[in-house]
């Protein structure tokens, strides 16, 4: 990707971030951390953390 295109992509993501409610962002982040990818390498011990 060329620099101006990459800049525009980051800028668009920034705008999306600013449009989100801060409390919602934290809730979404907690969900993403708790329910991360289900990888075959994960043991139940890791999933329980």
């Amino acid at each position, binding site marked *: 990707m060329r620099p101006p295109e990459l*800049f525009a992509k980051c800028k668009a993501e920034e705008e999306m971030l600013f449009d989100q409610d801060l409390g919602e*962002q934290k809730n979404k982040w*907690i969900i993403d951390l708790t329910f991360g990818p289900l990888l*075959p390498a994960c043991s*139940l011990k890791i999933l*329980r953390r």
Partner: protein
Amino acid sequence: MLASSSSEDIQAWASKYAFLLSSLRQARARDQDVVWLLLAKWLKQEKLFTPEEILPVGVLKRLTKNVRDRYRHLRPSQLLYANLVEVWLPYFEALFNEYRRSNNSRKKDTPAALQESGFDSHAVGIVTSIDRRRREPTSAAVEWASRRLDVDASAVSNAHSLVFGTRRRRR
């Protein structure tokens, strides 16, 4: 969908399915919440349902408790600071790659060369003026984000370390 899939795709699906079944069997013998956790992770990963859509409220609360407790002092604004750094990091990684290439080819005017390559002049200014010891993409993205937010760079840096860790992006 399976009709158009390659044999590698089918093998990958089969192995994923076998792993899921085996994990669910183990989980069933141990703890019902782990069954919920596995199903929620799987359905989220497959982009079919969000955990909030399928989990009973009490289960969702129990499963997220550890993470909520661990980050209970994290302010939502700190999460915004950290995420903003992550949003801009790919841009500064690209800029640093070009910066190193320009330096290695011993071009006389690196900032001008970077701008000619299409990089933003303010971003180039940050990269070329940043302290040599801190000269890496994350520091530059922190500086950039702090200017966008009009907050102190140390507050942005602390938030980013807290959320994403200090070592994750080191390459």
